[in-house]
């Protein structure tokens, strides 16, 4: 099975994150950048399917030059090769334009299965898998906490608020996964060394036949007007329980009319 895993480089969600003051885009310059955590589960799932069914695993990333670091990190887990879509004109692209570029890149890769994280920790938009499926005319199985592959038949358990849904489709398909699906492996030393030699193909917009005017700020279908930092919450009253903590807690709730 030919599997492509979408990997996005994002600012570390454990550190302070900002939007740029000049153009309102995510500040990737000052931040410590990492693989979007949810994508690591997609990589792990791809490797497990490869171990069971054979085939090839390819990482696909759209992002600036420095996203190459995250691509190497992803390859060190075990995938065979990577494709990096990189072009200065992509800066400022909206979700719709991003899906157009990734769909064009997927068009060159002949994937049976496209795996990705259910959302990115920076945008948390969750729309990309369905946008891609819509553009490619393939099935989307999204929000999987379990994926079963049986020949060309795919079955997922899709997490819902009430429980889960069992959803099936035939390949080719896009499948997005939550972090409940597996436990990603750590790259081995051997894996890290091997990753340095794995092929990474770079593709520009012209390679993909996408016009610069369709992406970036020129092609964006939404725009940030302004942004501001929310004033940080300040702690209120803090008491130490000396036998009356529960009562005092309820007294506070009563003054706030919750009890």
């Amino acid at each position, binding site marked *: 099975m030919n599997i492509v895993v979408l990997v996005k480089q994002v600012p570390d*969600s454990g550190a302070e*994150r900002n*939007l740029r003051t000049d153009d309102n885009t995510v500040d990737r310059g000052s931040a410590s950048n990492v693989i979007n*955590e949810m994508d690591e589960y997609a990589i792990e799932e791809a490797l497990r399917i490869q171990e069971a069914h054979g085939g090839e695993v390819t990482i696909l990333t759209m992002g600036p030059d420095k996203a190459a670091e995250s691509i190497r990190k992803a390859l060190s887990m075990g995938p065979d090769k990577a494709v990096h879509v990189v072009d200065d004109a992509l800066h400022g692209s*909206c*979700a719709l334009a991003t899906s157009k570029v990734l769909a064009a890149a997927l068009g060159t890769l002949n994937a049976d299965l496209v795996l990705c994280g259910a959302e990115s*920790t920076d945008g*948390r*938009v*969750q*729309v990309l*898998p*369905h*946008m891609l499926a*819509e553009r490619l*005319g393939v*099935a*989307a*199985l*999204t929000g999987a906490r379990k994926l079963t592959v049986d020949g060309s038949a795919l*079955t997922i358990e899709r*997490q*819902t*608020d*009430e*429980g889960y*849904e*069992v*959803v*099936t*489709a*035939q390949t080719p*398909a896009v499948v997005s996964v*939550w972090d*409940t699906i597996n436990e990603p492996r750590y790259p081995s030393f051997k894996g890290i060394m091997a990753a340095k030699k794995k092929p990474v193909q770079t593709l520009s917009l012209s390679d993909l036949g996408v016009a610069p005017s369709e992406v970036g700020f020129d092609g964006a*279908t*939404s725009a*940030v*007007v302004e*942004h501001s*930092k*929310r004033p940080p*919450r300040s*702690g*209120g*009253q*803090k*008491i*130490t*329980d000396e036998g*009356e*903590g*529960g*009562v005092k*807690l*309820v007294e506070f*709730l009563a003054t*706030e009319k*919750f*009890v």
Partner: protein
Amino acid sequence: MAEVLVVVEHSGGEVKKVTLEMLTLARELGTPAAVVLGGPGTAAPLHDKLSEYGAAKVYAGESDDLDGYLVAPKASVLAELVRSTSPAAVLLGSTQEGKEIAGRLAVKLDNGLLTDVVGLSPDGVATQVVFAGSTIVKSRVTRGLPLVTVRPNSLTPAPAPGTAEVSTLDVTVDESAKLARVVDRKVEAKGARPELTEASVVVSGGRGVGSADNFKLVEELADLLGGAVGASRAATDSGFYPHQFQVGQTGKTVSPQLYVALGISGAIQHRAGMQTSKTIVAVNKDAEAPIFELADFGVVGDLFKVVPQAAEEIRKRK
């Protein structure tokens, strides 16, 4: 005034609260028109509630195809409706399914999309809170109509009673939208508690709760306060509580009137999902836990003493 389409979120024959919020918001932007998409017989039981909150019209799209496949058929029907009615805006819930329908609709209409919106002004400027609640963004759709998903608990629903006219949609779903078939739906126990993202009170437990069995304490306090139960990632990863109740960066984002954190240290992972809550209360034995930096009221102490005492006190006052 042009119609504002509100895509109805419903479950078990009832309208979800986020829909009432969207209808309230839609009244500021135009004439609210609710769009019900589901299997045969879905729309009728929802009609009165939608009317009560100001829907002037209910578009009823009912077919087994809408129920039997994942989101794509709903997006197809909605795209047709947008093309034929040219609404002033389209609002969906910022839930997994709402966002997914919106994503497909954006591609079909080549229309911009804004997600996780907490406010939308009549001039089309939307407010979003990003980066774990640390940054407020004002944004607008620059191609097409305002297509936005609204985060639950963003505003207070207000009734505006009327009687919605029913318009039945012709549902024809192309085979290309029937690629992902829903073969089964399983309900996992959640009892009578309100839905996590819509609840006005959320009581969450963390690593400090210590075991699945001890989560009964968290549930008891939640029930006394009429709230939902949440859990930190540490608690769900340890198997104390099911994953769908996780609050945080990799789980649900909640914004209730009251958030009670029990045995939760308040790592950024968790704060990302709850720090826009109106009032935050915390119980933790570690006086240095970062959760106290957010808490309006914090108790440093053993939750196994503080929580049962609080529960007893609430019972006394009832």
